[in-house]
Each structure stands twice: as C-alpha cells, then as structure tokens.
C-alpha cells in the first residue's frame, strides 16, 4: 500500500531522482570541518521555527514588547525553552557560519568555479549579522535600547550620508516605536526573504558544482 502510494508520487514528482541528486551525490573524502555548512543550515531552520513560535506571543510595540516577552518567559509553558533556543541559536549560528567561512577560505574552496557560491555566502553572513542586529532590539529592554542607540550611531558616522543612514535606520531622528516596528519587519520578513533566496542559490551551487577536495601538497 505505502509502496504503491510512493511509486505513484515518485512517477509524478521524481522523488528518487531528487534524492539521488541531493543526498546520494558524490563527495570527496573530507573531514568534520565540512559539516559546518549543514550545521549552519540546521541552526537557520531552527531559528526560523522558534522565531515563528515566538511571534505567536511577541508584540513589537514599546507598550507591549517587554511585557509580552516577560509573558513568554513566565506565563507560557515552555516559553523559556523556545526563547532560549532562539537566543542561543542566534549566537551559535554566527559561530558556525564564521568557522564555515574560515574552512572555505583556508582550503581555497572559494576558487573557480565556486566564486559565486562564496559571493552568496558573503550575502548570507551579512544577512545573519543583520538578523542579529535587528533581533537584539526586539526585547526592548535597557540593553537592547542602548545597543541599538550605539549601533545606529555608528552607522551615522559614515561620511556625507551618515546622518541620512541613521535616520533611515531609526525611522526618524530618535529611537522610537518606528525603530522597533521597522526592525521587527526587517527581522521577520525582509531579511528572511533575502536569506531564503540566497540560501537556495547557495545550495543549488553546492549541488551543481559539488564540493571541493581538501588541497594536497602539490596543489
């Protein structure tokens, strides 16, 4: 029965060939450093899932942001767990992504024909930092308020356009409700959209080009 359903679907969707292409593709003999891309992907998906769950209760307004997070931590069952995973996962993701970058750099895996994969990786790293920066404001506590004050002030030191960038980031001259809602929008809609598109290209290229060998002495 299950086999009949599977073969019916397989015939129409080509599941076996997807499996063969993605999971049964040939890879060179590699080491544990090569797992960090998958680790980053896993953490990214985990951030997505826990983030969706947090949005069930979180409210991005100065009136309610702090109280809604207090409610998640104390009033909702397992709220501490979901927020804890999102909090620690964020730091861990930056760590795995950065070590992944170092692995690619020191093994020279960014060279032809994988320059574009590297490029999309850079976009992903910047996006991840952007997620960290925007997410940091959302609890709307003293630390996040002043961190964002300082962070946007740093962006404001750019020559000529600095003041304009600062005002665009804050949605005005001051850190306000407008800052909180635009950071929230960036955090849950705009940057994730960029990340999903870029991860798709990144993974497509990994599968299309295969992964590079560990360089040998003569390379």
């Amino acid at each position: 029965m299950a086999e009949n359903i599977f073969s019916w679907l397989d015939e129409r969707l080509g599941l076996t060939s997807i499996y063969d292409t993605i999971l049964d593709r040939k890879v060179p003999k590699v080491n544990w450093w090569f797992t960090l891309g998958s680790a980053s992907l896993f953490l990214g998906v985990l951030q997505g899932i826990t983030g969706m769950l947090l949005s069930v209760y979180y409210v991005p307004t100065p009136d309610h942001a702090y109280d809604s997070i207090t409610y998640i931590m104390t009033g909702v069952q397992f709220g501490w767990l979901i927020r804890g995973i999102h909090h620690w996962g964020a730091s861990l993701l930056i760590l795995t992504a950065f070590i992944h970058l170092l692995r690619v750099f020191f093994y020279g895996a960014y060279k032809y024909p994988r320059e574009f994969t590297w490029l999309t990786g850079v976009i992903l790293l910047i996006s991840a930092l952007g997620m960290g920066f925007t997410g940091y404001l959302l609890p709307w506590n003293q630390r996040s308020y002043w961190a964002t004050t300082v962070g946007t002030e740093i962006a404001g030191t750019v020559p000529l356009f600095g003041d304009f960038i600062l005002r665009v980031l804050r949605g005005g001259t001051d850190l306000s409700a407008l800052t909180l809602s635009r950071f929230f929008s960036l955090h849950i809609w705009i940057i994730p959209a960029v990340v999903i598109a870029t991860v798709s290209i990144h993974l497509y290229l990994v599968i299309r080009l295969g992964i590079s060998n560990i360089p040998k002495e003569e390379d």
Partner: protein
Amino acid sequence: MGSKYQSPNLDRKSFVKIVTAALGSIMAAIVGLPVIQYFISPALNIKAGDEWISLGSLENFPLDIPTLFNFTLTRVNGWERSSHSYGAFVLRKPGETIVFSDVCTHLSCRVGWDPDNLEFYCPCHAAFFDKNGEVISGPPPRPMDRYETKLEGDQLFIHLREG
C-alpha cells in the same frame, strides 16, 4: 557475514530502519510536545469567574420594562489587563425579578430592547425575543439566558459565573 548470524525474520537493513524510525519518533515527540504545549497553553488557562454582582436597589428598576444595567470587570489576558463590559436586562415584575444576559444565544452579539415593539432584537442576524426572553423569530436555538438572582433587603444581586 556468516549466515549463522543472520536472523530468518529480520535482515540488518530492516532492523536499522525500524530502530531509526523508533528513535526518530521519540526525538520528534520530545521536541514536538513542548511546542504543542507552548502553542495551546493560554487555552488551558481557564479563568473561573464566580461572583455576585450588585445591581443596586431593586426600586431603581421600573416595573414591567426590561432595563439595561451595564457593568465592567477587569480581566487579565496574558500581559494585558483590560476591562470587559457586561450587560444585564432587569425585568422587574410584581413578586418576581428576571435578569437576562444581553448576549444573544445565537452567536453572542449583544441584544437591545426595542421599547416601541416591546421586544428584544439582535441586529446581527435579525433575532427577536419577547419580553420574557422567548424566541419570537430568527435563528437563536434557545431563549435568552438568565442570571441567577438574589435579594438582600432591597438590594438586587446577580450571580456571574464564567469558565
């Protein structure tokens, strides 16, 4: 692999499959159940309201005309404290006092009293009730709900029960 180690019922591949599926299910449950609990926990937090509300002196209510009495109670939902308004129609008759809830028995809109036609009406789906709360026409499945009442001296109380 020697054939003497081979089980006649289960080859190694099937064994690994079964163990993987079993362990996977346990792990999925460990991760999934807290998520379900997280999502539904406010729904499990049932607030049991049980209190007597004073409507003041019975003499304040006119005889034989349903009169609306509004009151508000504070409720805490999540992190928000908000006031919830209630309406009760007091119908004072000689020797008997009926207090109706103004919540329509159809789909919980609020009913009003039409003094010209002497009937309750619900504007949402054209429901009509007579003075005693019986359905005249429209979709309601049952007559208007009544509050339990008591008199202490000439003070009228209704019993508000929720949850």
